[in-house]
């Protein structure tokens, strides 16, 4: 049996990426001039553990880079070097480079070796400069008095399998001072029953020398969470006090917090959860099939059967919700990247900006979470670039010099709402109108309500910044943001007050796996129309329908004419009714355009589990997916935006 280390790569990458996030967060909190030692320790621990991991797995470039970084951090930690703004920047850049390296190694892509080498050189230069700039404070190992440490170290069974070897740690300890080791083999099973991949031993040690506790704990840094560790200082001469068995010595708050978040959680691959989700989806279908069957059953046992089925329905729903919750992550995963971004942007644009975040613990589905990041980045950039003024004009307007960008997330019904607001200049009605006219987006004489004006900023090709900056004027406008959000079944709204700021609110469904749908009947088929797209359903009178050449049938609806989409014609099926006044028209909206769907009948509203057509069959224009109904038949879920586009094309042809 051989041990393939690559199976641990995934965990290493995931853990390192998370560790880098916490390193970045700590760096951003770090006060230049009077740094909090605990924050430096946090940063140091991350660098140290990534170094250890990458060395174990043979990622030499990362190990070499983190080694330099660690040396620099060691200088900062020992206060042999001040934390200057330049150093702080250097460290933040190192976070970026390490992220890049991890990503490259993970994806087995080549590294940007030049960038890594340049930064590594900068780091080494900074260390070298310190030794010339601060000769007054030389290396002072003598600051630590000689003392003895009592160490109890018991690795957990999986210790070896995680790429750790106690021998390496004991060797490191021995290099620090005089080490006496006593092996505890009491729990070592008989050879015949011994699992060779598991660690069954423990060690009690006494280490004597000029050693600080930090240096000692560092030795075990990479193993935290994989072992019981007790470190106690004992007087150099006297007897050692008995350490509390199983206790891990005094811990700093940060370590305790890290341990608290570690305990009671496991890392699970997304594909496993998706599989589970899929199976639960199937279960929901089977259950609704049984329910339909139960209705038609008569006899003595029928009541009991129906009772059981009702119970099953409740359990299935709970199960589905639980699985759904497993996929939920707090939005802080996305919010966390903003402090850094805001800091960099403010620096670049010469503005003072305070970022406030609230509701970071609000949870949403991982898929939605992954897709909400870019729109939010765009909105925050917009706020900083276009919204918040430079300090001087702010003061002139009677506002504090530092602008505030606020990000807030909360649940509203079955949706999540994320707000990005600022106390900047707000949307300038006149400038927006002028720009829209200049771009030919609106006519010169057109008049608009305030709300209509704010909608103009979502038009393709719109940007009000007098000069396009490299910050938010990159040709990717708010129209893209709006389209992305609509694709997720959400919407974006703006409120603005000139001179006081604006607020963008994104509303998204909590999950993309289930949709609230209205089932409609056409002939013998059933289609699902997402409830969010439906405006209303109505029965048309024959005299309300006009036939226009080139546009097909249209009907008057709230002051405008909407095209009729005959679903049976589009999908080529035999309907039960052909006359518009005999069936029903469902007024729907997709991609900002409205239309009336002509259907035979409305059936009912229900939550349906979305099955991808693309993965199971192929992409079909006008259909966003499929679901399986209670009777086992398949119903297509309509994509209204696609459907309206399709009809417009056909009418034009």
């Amino acid at each position: 049996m051989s041990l393939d280390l690559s199976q641990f790569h995934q965990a290493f990458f995931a853990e390192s990426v998370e560790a880098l996030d916490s390193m970045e967060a700590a760096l951003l909190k770090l006060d230049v001039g009077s740094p909090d030692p605990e924050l430096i320790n946090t940063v140091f621990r991350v660098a140290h553990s990534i170094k250890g991991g990458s060395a174990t797995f043979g990622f030499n470039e990362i190990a070499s880079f983190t080694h330099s970084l660690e040396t620099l951090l060691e200088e900062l930690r020992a206060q042999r070097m001040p934390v200057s703004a330049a150093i702080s920047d250097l460290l933040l850049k190192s976070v970026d480079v390490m992220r890049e390296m991890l990503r490259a190694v993970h994806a087995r892509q080549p590294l940007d070796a030049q960038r890594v080498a340049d930064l590594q050189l900068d780091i080494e230069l900074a260390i070298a400069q310190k030794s010339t700039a601060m000769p007054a404070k030389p290396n002072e190992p003598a600051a630590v008095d000689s003392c003895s440490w009592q160490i109890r170290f018991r690795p957990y069974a999986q210790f070896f399998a995680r790429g750790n070897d106690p021998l390496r740690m004991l060797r490191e300890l021995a290099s620090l001072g005089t080490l006496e080791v006593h092996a505890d083999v009491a729990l070592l099973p008989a050879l015949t029953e011994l699992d060779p991949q598991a660690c069954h031993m423990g060690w009690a040690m006494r280490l004597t020398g000029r050693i600080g506790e930090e240096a000692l704990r560092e030795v075990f840094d990479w193993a935290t969470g994989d072992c019981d560790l007790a470190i106690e200082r004992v007087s150099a001469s006297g007897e050692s006090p008995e350490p509390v068995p199983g206790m891990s010595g005094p811990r700093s708050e940060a370590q305790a917090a890290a341990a608290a978040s570690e305990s009671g959680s496991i890392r699970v691959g997304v594909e496993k959860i998706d599989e589970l989700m899929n199976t639960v989806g199937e279960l929901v279908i089977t259950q609704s099939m049984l329910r339909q069957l139960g209705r038609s059953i008569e006899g003595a046992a029928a009541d009991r059967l129906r009772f059981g089925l009702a119970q099953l329905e409740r359990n299935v729903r709970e199960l589905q919700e639980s699985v759904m919750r497993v996929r939920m992550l707090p939005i802080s995963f996305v919010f966390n990247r903003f402090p850094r971004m805001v800091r960099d942007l403010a620096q670049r644009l010469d503005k003072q900006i305070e970022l406030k975040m609230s509701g970071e613990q609000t949870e949403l589905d991982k898929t939605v979470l992954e897709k909400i990041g870019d729109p939010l980045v765009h909105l925050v950039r917009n706020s900083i670039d276009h919204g918040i003024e430079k300090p001087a004009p702010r003061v002139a307007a009677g506002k504090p010099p530092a602008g505030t960008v606020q990000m807030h997330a909360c649940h509203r019904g079955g949706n999540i709402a994320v707000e990005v607001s600022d106390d900047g200049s707000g949307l300038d009605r006149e400038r927006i109108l002028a720009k829209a006219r200049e771009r030919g987006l609106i006519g010169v004489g057109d008049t608009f309500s305030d709300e209509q004006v704010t909608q103009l900023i979502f038009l393709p090709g719109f940007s009000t910044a007098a000069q396009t900056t490299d910050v938010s004027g990159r040709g990717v406008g708010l129209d893209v943001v709006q389209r992305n959000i609509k694709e997720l079944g959400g919407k974006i709204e703006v409120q603005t007050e000139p001179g006081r700021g604006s607020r963008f609110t994104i509303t998204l469904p909590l999950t993309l796996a289930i949709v609230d749908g209205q089932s409609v009947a056409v002939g013998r088929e059933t289609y699902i129309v997402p409830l969010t797209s439906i405006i209303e359903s109505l029965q048309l009178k024959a005299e309300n329908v006009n036939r226009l050449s080139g546009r097909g049938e249209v009907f008057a609806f709230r002051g405008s004419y909407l095209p009729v989409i005959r679903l049976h014609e589009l999908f080529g099926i035999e309907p039960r009714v052909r006359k518009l006044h005999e069936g029903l028209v469902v007024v729907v909206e997709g991609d900002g355009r409205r239309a009336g769907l002509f259907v035979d009948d409305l059936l009912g509203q229900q939550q349906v589990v979305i099955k991808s057509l693309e993965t199971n069959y192929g992409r079909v224009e006008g259909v966003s997916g499929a679901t399986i109904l209670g009777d086992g038949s398949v119903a297509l879920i309509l994509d209204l935006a696609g459907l309206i586009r399709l009809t417009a094309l056909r009418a034009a042809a």
Partner: protein
Amino acid sequence: MKKRSLAARSARSLTLPGECTLADAEGLKLRLMRLLTHVTAVTLDVRRVRRIDTASMQLLAAFVRDRSTSGRTVRITGDSAAFAEASRLLGLGELLGFPAAAAKAAS
């Protein structure tokens, strides 16, 4: 006479490979198990060992202990810096009886 020659024939030794690591711990366990109940002295030759990890040392510790509890001995022979360091650092010198002098020398 006959009995002694039988004993001589059955005296066994195992030469540990140069690299004793977790990757081959299962193999080492099997080889040690074959020697576990061997009635006469067993010799482990460590002279080739250039690298040895805790997982392998743990197996040797269990092997030596299991044999000694049933009154059977194991002799470790050969000169290997890696093996000496490992048994010293892991505090197993005394249990393994190797090398007697290194068991207490700490630094």
